[in-house]
């Protein structure tokens, strides 16, 4: 991995996998956006798949964590997500409460078992 970081290869990757796939949709929205029906069936499927892909990425970071997060035991990582979710649900969907509660759970657990 680190072999190509910072050189032209990393920039090509950024362009091909990051910039182009995003800007294509934005520019299509700019050019063709007028006659779009937000409730169309195709769009509902697309949104469901996009949401599930994002959910997969979230799961990947928690299940197969990168870097420093890998040093945290699994039950603390899953517990933090669960604790955050409880706070999120109890506060009528406050993102801040969910994130703060999850973080506090993990840090407290690290301190307790650390």
């Amino acid at each position, binding site marked *: *991995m*680190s072999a190509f*970081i*910072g050189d032209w290869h*990393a*920039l090509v*990757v950024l362009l091909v*996998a*990051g*910039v182009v*796939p*995003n*800007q*294509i*949709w*934005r*520019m*299509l*929205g*700019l050019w*063709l*956006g007028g006659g*779009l029906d*937000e409730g169309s069936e195709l769009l*509902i*499927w697309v*949104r*469901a*798949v996009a*949401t*599930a*892909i*994002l*959910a*997969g*990425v*979230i*799961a990947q*970071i*928690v*299940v197969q*964590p*990168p*870097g*420093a*997060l890998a*040093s945290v035991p699994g039950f603390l990582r899953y517990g*933090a*997500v669960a604790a955050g979710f409880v706070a999120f649900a109890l506060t009528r*969907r406050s*993102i*801040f409460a*969910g*994130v703060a509660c*999850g*973080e506090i759970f*993990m*840090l407290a657990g*690290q301190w307790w078992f*650390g």
Partner: protein
Amino acid sequence: MPLPSLDSPQWNSSPRAFAFGVRSVGSTILALVLFATYLGIGALAHDSGFSLAWTLLSTLLVWAGPAQIIVITTLASGATIVQAAIAVTVSAIRLFPMVASVLPMMRTADTKRYRLILVAHFTAVTLWVECHRFLPQVPRERRIAFVHGLGSGLVCVSLTANTIGYLLAENLSQTLASAILLLTPLSFLFSTARNSKEFADVLALVLGLALYPLASLLNSGLDILLSGVGAGTIAYGVHRLRARP
């Protein structure tokens, strides 16, 4: 600080409208969520072996948190560029309806299309939500300048957060560095859950979380795509079944 009233002479100049846009960043809680998200992305990029310059460039040019995370995590886990590009392309489709629905809010009869390019670039979930909140308080002919200011301000917040997150991941103790990395999944999980208004979206989120560990057992290198298309399609199917009389 509240914006001046619609007929105020303060709206007469575009630079001033731009400044009001920048200032509005301070009055949105979503800027805080954005800060936390990009703090996490900075740390994630560091721990996945990307350079700081690469990370900042990706924020500047891609300007979509989920896409940036997909690029970083899929490439770091050994997937090919093509797989990452497909996953990002699918995740970015949501930008299409966002752009299509946000532009009519600032278009006037004689607005040239090229003047909206930068607005289209700035459009992502945060700007999209804030446009619906702020633009009714902005005179139509100053809205483009206002959104340019708002977008620039949000990008600056994110670039700052990226840099801080990256440097913290480099220098902090392992416990605190892991706390910053955890910001990414938490902030995305809850902001996606908050934005999931339709039944199909909620189900897709839950199934997507549940199916990823299963798909990763197949070890195909296409884990995220497989679980995403699978979970999303099942969620859509259930939505169709429910819609039937």
